[in-house]
C-alpha cells in the first residue's frame, strides 16, 4: 500500500511542490491541508502515515498544531516532520523540545524530498 502523507502548508505553491515531489518522485499519495484546522480534521479522519507540517502558519502555528496532534490519541502516533524555513539555532531550539520525527528546511530539493522523508521515517 502506498504511503499517504499529509502535507500541511498555507502556501499553495509549496503544497503543490511538495505534493508533486512526493507523488511524482516518491510515488506516494498525498493529502493537503492549508490550515491547522484542516490538518487536524484530515489527520483524524484519514489514514495518514506521516504529516509534513509547515511551522509558520498564520492561524495556528505549527507548534500548536503539533500539540493538538499529540493531544489526540489517534493522531499522536502519526510521525510529524516539520517543514520550516527557520534555520536559526534558537529556532531549532524550539523544535528540540518537541518529539518530532524530523526537520526539513526549505528550500529543499523536491527530487530527494521523498528520500529524505523516507530516511527520517525509516521507510
Amino acid at each position, binding site marked *: 500500500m502506498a504511503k499517504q502523507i499529509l502535507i500541511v502548508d*498555507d*502556501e*499553495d*505553491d*509549496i503544497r*503543490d*511542490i*511538495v505534493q*508533486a*515531489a512526493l507523488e*511524482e*518522485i516518491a510515488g506516494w499519495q498525498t493529502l493537503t491541508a*492549508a490550515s491547522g484546522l484542516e490538518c487536524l480534521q484530515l489527520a483524524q479522519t484519514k489514514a495518514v502515515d506521516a504529516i509534513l507540517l509547515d511551522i*509558520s502558519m*498564520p492561524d495556528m502555528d505549527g507548534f500548536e498544531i503539533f500539540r493538538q496532534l499529540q493531544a489526540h490519541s489517534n493522531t499522536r502516533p502519526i510521525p510529524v516532520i516539520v517543514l*520550516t*524555513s*527557520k*534555520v*536559526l539555532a*534558537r*529556532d531549532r531550539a524550539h523544535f528540540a523540545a518537541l518529539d518530532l520525527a524530523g526537520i526539513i*528546511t*526549505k*528550500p*529543499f*530539493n*523536491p*527530487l530527494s524530498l521523498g528520500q529524505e522523508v523516507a530516511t527520517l521515517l525509516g521507510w
Partner: protein
Amino acid sequence: MLLPVAVNLRRRIASIPLFWVITIPLAVSAVGALAGVGYLAHRNGQVAVEGLGKQLVTQTNALINREITSYLEVPLLINQLNVDNVQQGRLDLQDMAALEELLFQRLQQFDQMTTILFAAPDGTFRVVERFPTWKAAVAEPSQPGRLTQYHLNPDGSRGLQLDIATGFDVRRDRPWYQQAVTHGGPVWSPIAQHGPSDYLTLTASQPVYDPTTGALLGVFAVQTRLGYLSEILQQFSLSQGSRILVADPTGTLVATSTGEQPYTVIGGSNLRKQFQRQTLTTSQDELVRALGEQLHTLESQPQNRPNHPATRPAISLAQPPLTIAPVPHTFSFRHQNQRQFVKILPIQDAYGLDWRMITMVPEAHFLGDLERHQQQATLLWLLSLGGALGVGLLAAKLLLRRLAQFTQASQLLAAGDLNQRLATDSPIAELNGLAQSFNQMVDQLQAAFNKLQTALDESETKFSSIFRFNPDPIAITTFAEGRFLDVNRSELAFFGYHRDEMIGRTALELNLWTDINQRHHYRALLEQHGQVRGLEVQVTTKSGDIRTILLSAKRQSLEGQDCVIVAHQDITVLKQAEARLQQTQRWLRQYSQLSPGNIYTLVSEPDGTMWFEYASAAVETIHEITVDQALADARLILNTFHPDDLPGYEAAAQECLHTLCAFTHQFRIITPSGQVKWLDARSQPEVRANGVIAWHGIAIDITDRKQAAKALQESETRFRQLAETVQEGFFVYEIERDCYSYVNPAYSAILDIPLQELYMGMAHWIARIHPDDRDRIETALAREQHGENFSQEYRYITPEGELRWLRSKAFPLCDTGGQVIRVVGTVENITERKQAETALRQSEERFRRAFDDAPYGISLVSADGRFVKANAYYCNLLGYTEAELLNMTFLDVTYAEDQECDWALFRQMMTGKIPTCQVEKRYITKQGMVIPVQISAAPVYDEAGQPLYSVGHVQDIRERLAVDHMKDEFISIVSHELRTPITAIQGALMLLGARVYDSRPQQANYMLDIAIKNSARLVRLVDDILSFERLESGKVQLEKEACEVASLMYQAVESVQPIADQSGITITLTPLTATLWAAPDEIIQVLTNLLSNAVKFSFSGSTIWLSAEVKGEEAATSLPPYLPTSRPRFLPRTYLLFTVTDQGRGIPADRLDLIFKEFQQVDASDSRKRGGTGLGLAICRRIVMRHQGHIWVKSCLGVGSTFYVALPQGAE
C-alpha cells in the same frame, strides 16, 4: 635940494583927499576905456563894413568889367573877321552882293550888335542893321550922298525900299570912318548917332587894305547900341540905392544902371540929329549929380575936352573940368546924410576905348543898421560911464567913511581908550578885514595888558604864597642888623614864635643861635660872598630844642633896602636818620659776618672785569680764602667753578647781565683743598653809573642739601620704578583735596583712563563701574570713609567698552583725630581669573548637567563599591533615591547571579589590572524588577594615583535587547519569507528538470507557472525587504523637493492601472493641484502600495478612489476618527491628506494597527496569493514617518477600507 622938494612934494601929495584919488582915476579910466572901446568898436565896425562893401563892389565891378569888355570885344572881332576875309581873298569887295550877304550873315551871327557897315573910300556904303527891324542901307559910289534904305528879308535879300536919305556922306559924316582911316587900325569911334535913329551907338571900325598894294579898300564897322550897355549895367544893380555908371573920364555918361537915358536929342533931324549927352552933374538922378559934384571936387583937372559936336557936353555949370583918373580908386562921400561908397574902375582898351566904370553904393546898403547900433552903443557907453562913475563915487564915499572911523578909533586908542571897536558890517571885504584886524589888534592889546596885569598879580601872589607857605622856613632880614622884616609860616612854626614876636627883632635878640661862632661864620660868609649855601648850624627854638639846620641866605636889594633872604632846612631828623643808618650798617656788617652764606656785592665793569666790593666772612668757610683775598682778587672765587657747571653759570650770568633780572643759579666749585661743593647763588642787580652793575647777593653752601636731594631722588626713582613696573595698580588718594595724589601707570592701564584724567578725581572710576555693582561699591566706599578697609571685586567698563573684573583693596589712613585723610590702595585686573572661574563653573555646570541629565545612568562608586553619587536616570532606573543609594553598594542592586562576576571585574579595575570594564548584567530594582543593563566603568584617580572612585555609565538595554530580539525575529521572518518562494521555484524547476512532466505538458506548464509566479514574488519580496531595510536603517536621506501632488497621484495610479484592469477594478482619481514638499518617489511608492493593496483586496467590478485634500489648522477632533494608538501627537500646520478608499472585504478592528507592522498580514496566505509581501504597509508607514506625517486606516468589515496619509505640505 632934491630931498626937500621930494619931501614937499610928498607932503603935498600926501594931503590929496582920498576921494579924488579914487574918483578921478576911476572916472578917467572909465571914460577913457569906454571911449576908447567905443571908438575902436565904431571904427572897426566901419572899417569892417567898408572893407566888406569895397570887396563886394570890387567883385561886382570886376564882373561888370568883364561883361562889358567881352561885349565890347565883339565888334572888334567882327571887324577883324571881315578884314581877314577880304585880305585872305574870301571876300571880294567888288562883289557887293557877297559883301551884303557877308554883312548880313555877320549880323545874324552876332545878335548883340546893332549894325554892321562897310564903307569904301570910293563912296560905297553898305549897312545892315537889325534894330528896330532888319534893314539895309546902301550908298553907291556914283551917288555917295544918297543912302537908300531897304527892308531885309529873312534870307538877307533886299526887300522893300524904305527911304532915301540924302546929304549924308559916310566918309564925312561919320567919325568912325575917318578915325579908322586916320588910325589905320581897329579903333573905337566916339559915340554918335546911329543913322537916322534916335539912339546913340558905339562904333568899332577897322580899315581894310589891299594885301598887295596896301591901298585902303574900305572900312568895316560894327555898331552897338549904347542902351545895351545900360541894360548890362542894370543887370548888375546891387541894391536899390546903388548906382553903376559908365562914363568917360570927363564925367559924360555912357551907360547907367538907373535906367535913364544918358543923352537927349536936342535937335537936328534925320541923320544929323543932335544929342546932348548927360554928364554926372546933369544926371536926373540926384545921387549921380551928387557924385558928379564930388568927383569934380576930387578930381577936377583942367584938360582939353574933346570937341565933338555930337558929344558936346552939357552946358557947363561954371565948374572946373573933370578928369577922372584912369586908375581904380575908391572913396566915399556923404549925400543927404547917407554915405555913399564909390568905386571907380577904368575900362580901356587898345583901340581908343577909355571909360570909367563908377559904382556907387550907399553905405546904408551894408552899414544898414550899423548907425542905429552905433547910437545904441553910444547910449550904452554913456550909461556905463555914468554907472561906473556913480559906483565909483559910492565906493569912495563908503570907503572914506570907514577910513574916517578907522582914523578916529586909532586916535582914541592912542589916547588910551582901549574900548574902541570898529564895525565889521561893511560890504567891502577889505574894509571888514581892516576893521577886524583893528579889532583884533585892540583885543590883543587889551589882552596883553590884562595878562600883564594878571601876571603881575599872580607873580605877586605866587611870591607871596611861596614865601608864606613854603615848608622851608624863610625869613627876610635886614642885612645890617639881621632884623626880621618878614617871616613865613614855616619859620614861625619852626622857631615857635608868633609873628609879632619875631618881626622887628634880630636872631641874636631871640637867642636863635645856639653857637655864636657859627653866627660869625655865617656873617662872614654873607659879607664875603653875598650868599651862604647849605651851612650846617645849630639853632635853638623858643621851646629850647636844639635843631640842626642847613642855612642858605642871599643878599638882595628889595624895594631899595639891603636885605637878606634866609632859608633853612631842618635836617635834625635827617641827622638822626644818618646816625641810625650808620648803626644799621654796623649791625648789617655783623650779621653778614655771622651768616653761613657768603653775602657779597660783585661789581661788573663795562669792560667785563669783575671785583668784589664786599664779601662776608663766610667766604672763608666756603671758599677757603680770606675776605681780603676775595676782595683783592675776585678771580680766586670766580675761577673755582666746576668746569662742567661753568658754561651754565656763564650763560645764566650773561642773560642776567643783559636783562638785568635777578640772578639765581646753582653750581659746583672746587675749593683749593679739592673739595667739591654745591653753591646756590642769588643776586639782584643794581645799575650804577657808567654801565657799572653791582650784584648784591648771597651764595649758600648747599652741598648737603644736594646730597640729600640726590638720595631722595634715588629713593623716588626706586619707588617709581617699582610703582611703574608692577602689574597691580597703585594709588594714593587725598580725601581733603578729593583727588589722587599718586597713581602708577598700571592703575591707569587697568582702568584704561589716561593719567591726566585720573588726577582729577574718583568720579571717572566710579562712573565706569558696572551699574549692578555700583551700589555695592558705593556702600563699601562709605564704610571706607569710616575707616574700614575696602576690598571688593567688581565689574568695570573701560572707556572703550571692554568689561573687566577688578579687585580693589584700599586702606584708609587716619590722622591723629581719627579722620580719614588719605586712602592708599591697589587695584588688580582679575578679569582672567574671573573668566577662568566662570569657565570652571560653567564646566562644572556642564558636567553636572551632563551628569544629571544624561540619558543613561551615571554612578560614582567608591573603591569599596559604595555609591558616592548617582544621577537621576540611575536613581529612576533602580527605583531608589540618591540618598538611599548612598547607603548601599552596587552589589545590593545587582542580580544575584551576576554579582560575583561583576565584583571580580570591579576589583580588577580598581586595582589597576584592567583600565576599564564593560559588562552586561542585571540590576534588581527596588520593586524587584530585573533590568538588563550594560555598564562601562572607569576609575578616577586622586593626585597620588590612588583610585578615588569609579565612574560607571549604565545603559538600560531592555529596549536594545527587545530591538535585537525583534531584529532576530525579523530576520527569521524574512528568511522564512524568502525561503518560501525559493522553495517553490527550486521545487518546480527541479521537478521539471527531472523530466517528470515530459509527457504531461499541462502539468509541466503548471509547474512553470509556479516557478514564474514565485520568481516574481521573490523579486518583489527582495525589493520590499531592501527598501524596508533602507528606510529602517535611516541611512538613506530622503531627498525632498516641491512635488506636484496631481503628478504624484497620476504616477501612482498609472503603475497600478494594469493590475487594476486585470482584476476588473476601476480606479477613480480626483487629482489635486497643490504642492507637496516630499520625496516624490517615496510618496508615489506609498500611494502605489496603498492602491495595490486596495486592488488586491477589492472584488472585481468594484471601484477604488484616490483623492487628496489640503487641510489647514484644524482641531484634532475634526479629523476623521482614528484609533487612539494612532492619534497623531502633533498636527502639521497645513497638511495634505491622501485618501485611498476601496470596497474590499475590510479589516478587522483588532488588526487596524497591526497591519502596519512588517509581515503582519490580515490573512497571510490570502495576501500571498495576491502577491503581497507583507511589507507594503510597513514600508508606507516608514516613508510617511520619515516625512513627519501619519498613516492610519478606517475600515468596516465587508464594506471597505479607507487609508489616510497625512503629510505636512511645506518644509518644516
